[in-house]
């Protein structure tokens, strides 16, 4: 099965690239493939101009340090038998950055940074709330001073009032440390808030890629339009004005995706061509890419 198929895009240094799409469309797979947790079956990955695609694990190590990941599930992503110190300090050990005292000092510093207390250092993950666990995950990712962080739904499992704490923290760190983010989420309003550019995925392929504001102001792909119109807006007056496109049916199985355009089975604009040829991602000007025969 191809969870992510024939996808090309780039992320500029210092920007936040948002990846949105419905459950199972391949967002996590994409993130994990980029940091080579999964092997690539076709295509290439470049970091800062270096091709990582076929690199051996040994040669990959220095690049691993430059790319970190914050995971979707703050409950499953931290080893329950490791203390906070061990979790946050693991990368420092692997990459041999600081020794003993310095290492502990660095860990304390990171805990301060993400708003945890130093006395939390010797506790275990189950003693923390979801939001605190996500902070531990962020401290772990920051420990090796990466350049690119893949944030895989870092706030989806958190309470609304805690989500904003984490989003603001990520924004601050980006400014202070010149970080680059790939921000994965299905909450489109948060993605819009945090991203410079956004890629909309459907069944393992990009439907549309554009600057964040442009995408929301002038969505072109029928899937993007439907997705945007489906967002529940916490403003009843706006909600009433919002003309909603209700999509028919469900997302088809990725094991046997439809021929041609994968969105054809649900698309309001579907034509003959759509079931025959797969549309390519075409630049419609100003970096706005759309994969649709009919726009």
């Amino acid at each position, binding site marked *: 099965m191809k969870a992510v198929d024939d996808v090309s895009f780039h992320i500029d240094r210092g920007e936040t690239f948002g990846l949105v799409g419905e459950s199972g469309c391949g967002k996590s797979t994409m993130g994990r493939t980029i940091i080579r947790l999964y092997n690539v079956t076709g295509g290439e990955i470049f970091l800062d101009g270096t091709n990582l695609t076929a690199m051996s694990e040994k040669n990959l190590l220095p690049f691993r340090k430059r790319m970190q990941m914050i995971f979707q599930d703050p409950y499953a992503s931290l080893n329950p038998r490791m203390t906070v110190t061990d979790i946050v300090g693991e990368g420092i050990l692997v990459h041999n950055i600081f020794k003993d005292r310095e290492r502990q000092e660095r860990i304390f510093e990171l805990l301060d940074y993400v708003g945890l207390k130093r006395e939390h250092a010797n506790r275990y993950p189950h003693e923390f709330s979801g939001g605190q666990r996500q902070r531990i995950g962020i401290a772990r990712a920051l420990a090796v001073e990466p350049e690119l962080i893949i944030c895989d739904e870092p706030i989806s499992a958190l309470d609304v*009032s805690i989500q904003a704490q984490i989003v603001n923290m990520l924004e601050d760190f980006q400014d202070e440390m010149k970080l680059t983010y790939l921000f994965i989420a299905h909450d489109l309003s*948060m993605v819009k808030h945090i991203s410079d550019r956004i890629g909309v995925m459907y069944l393992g392929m990009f439907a549309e890629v554009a600057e964040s504001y442009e995408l929301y102001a002038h969505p072109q792909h029928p899937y993007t339009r439907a997705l945007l119109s489906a*967002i*529940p807006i916490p403003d*009843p007056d706006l909600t009433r004005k919002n003309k909603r496109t*209700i999509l028919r049916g469900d997302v088809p199985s990725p094991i046997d995706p439809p021929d041609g355009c994968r969105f054809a089975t649900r698309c309001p604009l579907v034509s003959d061509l759509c079931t025959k040829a797969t549309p390519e991602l075409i630049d419609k000007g100003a970096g706005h890419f759309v994969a649709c025969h009919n726009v």
Partner: protein
Amino acid sequence: MSGEPLLEVKNISTSFFSHLGEIQAVRGVSFYLNRGDVLGIVGESGSGKSVTALSIMGLIEKPGKIKQGEIIFNGEDLMKKSQREMCELRGNEISMIFQDPMTSLNPVYRIENQMVEVIRYHNRNLSRKKAVAQAVEMLRLVKIPEPEKQIKSYPHEFSGGMRQRVMIATALSSNPGLLIADEPTTALDVTIQAQILDLMNDLRARINASIILITHDLGVIAEVCSRIIVMYGGTIMEAGNERDIFYNPQNPYTVGLHQSIPSNLAISEKRLVPIRGTPPNLMYPPKGCPFSPRCSYTMRICLEEAAPTIRLSDTHISVCWLLHENAPKINGYSKGKIVDRYKTPSGS
């Protein structure tokens, strides 16, 4: 028949007694639901939304207990009813859609058998054939395509959205006076959520159902609800109609919720204003207002005494010391009016 209360909940408290101590999940909650209304209960995880719903349904089991209160439904106090009478009532007059759709459909039976069983449970004289026909009609009502054929499916052959439709169809098949839907769309993708919310709006118009919708998403509330209750730490913080809660919130917690989320996609957003801290531990809830440890306006009395319920209008109440006549007037909360919804609280 709109306008008269179908359900009145008066000062209920529900606790769970674990070996570590008493978890005070719901503490003195009161509200009403008028016929034909859609009441939204919004709040974060652990605020007591599901426990409130389960208390109404009479489904609190040991080690849980409803410690006090009255639940008046159609003029009768449900707290005084026997187990058997409650069982009759559930599914007949009150139906609930549970938070997790997979737990409430049995994976080894076809949809048809499960629906027919429910329909005939409440109408024993109905022939099987007629019950099947009614089930098919219900599936058609919730827009399952080709219902005659699909009714033969097993739950796992359906997607999450379709299963949720089946749940709604089943819940509605006894033609209940009250439908309680606990996070009916939380597990679904947004495009599927839109289908379900659309369906609920449609049903509301067509069968004049009275609905309680539980969610943590203010966006979902804005789609379907006419009255709204905001819960926090097992208590009600604010209640009002759509205009009150979205355009004139009078409780710092409600304001905090609004400021934590990007509200308008069309404009380039300012920085979010998070609520600091974390929700309370209900084993040791704060003595005064449950929000006082996180609130930007906390006064000494907020920490010490439960806040008074202030009536702001016929439709609008807020449970907050700030609105008390002796409280100092704060910019933005002058006489209850919030001047700028997006202003950062000053006292922080």
